[in-house]
């Protein structure tokens, strides 16, 4: 008795498409974060530290131990 293999094609398609979408999203997020998983649950302290990392190294996820910092003031212009 012939097995209805055509009925499995939609399952295969859905799995492949979910897999591709998930993989591409993961690759895109890692590419934006220099190959590392993205940071989550970032609070104000973490945001300040990541901003400092950006000033030190040029990218918010790049880490180093060597350079001098420069401090900045978060100011707003009035009047």
């Amino acid at each position, binding site marked *: 008795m012939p097995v209805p293999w055509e009925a499995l094609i939609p399952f295969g398609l859905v799995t492949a498409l979910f897999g591709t979408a998930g993989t591409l999203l993961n690759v895109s997020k890692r590419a934006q974060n220099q190959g590392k998983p993205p940071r*989550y649950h970032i609070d104000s302290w973490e945001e300040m530290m990541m901003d400092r990392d950006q000033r030190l190294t040029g990218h918010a996820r790049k880490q180093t131990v060597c350079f001098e910092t420069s401090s900045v003031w978060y100011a707003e212009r009035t009047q």
Partner: protein
Amino acid sequence: MNSSFHPGESSSHPFHEPTPLPYSIPKVNEVGATSAPLKSSAFFIGAYCKEFNEDFMLCKAENREPAHCLKEGRRVTRCAIDLINKMRENCLQQFEAHWNCLELNNQQYGPCRKPERALNKCMFEKLGLVKTIPGTAPGQTPIHEVDNPLYGRMQK
């Protein structure tokens, strides 16, 4: 008196102070480490630089003005730089392994206990520094020494 409201505008660039410090103030380089190495060495900075840090905090508690605590601030900075240099001389492998692990795990200590134990062992052997978590209740094992903790990392 004109009391109309002027909303502030935030500028697109943060403000860099252009004037340098007066020449009478000794120049000390800032701690150039980014967030992951700092987080990795945090407890050792606490152990090594305890007196300087406490002096600085007490000084700030007296008076919050920046000019009041410059000397204590310089000592804190020098101590931290000194420790980070010593860590890199003595335990570079374990240090880098630990902060690379932190970077891969949202800078949380929990998932990175194995490299942390290696780093703690190396720091104790070479520099005699121990990581203690202040505020642990007297009978309780500190979380970094618990072998099988209840809570793990967030599911990937």
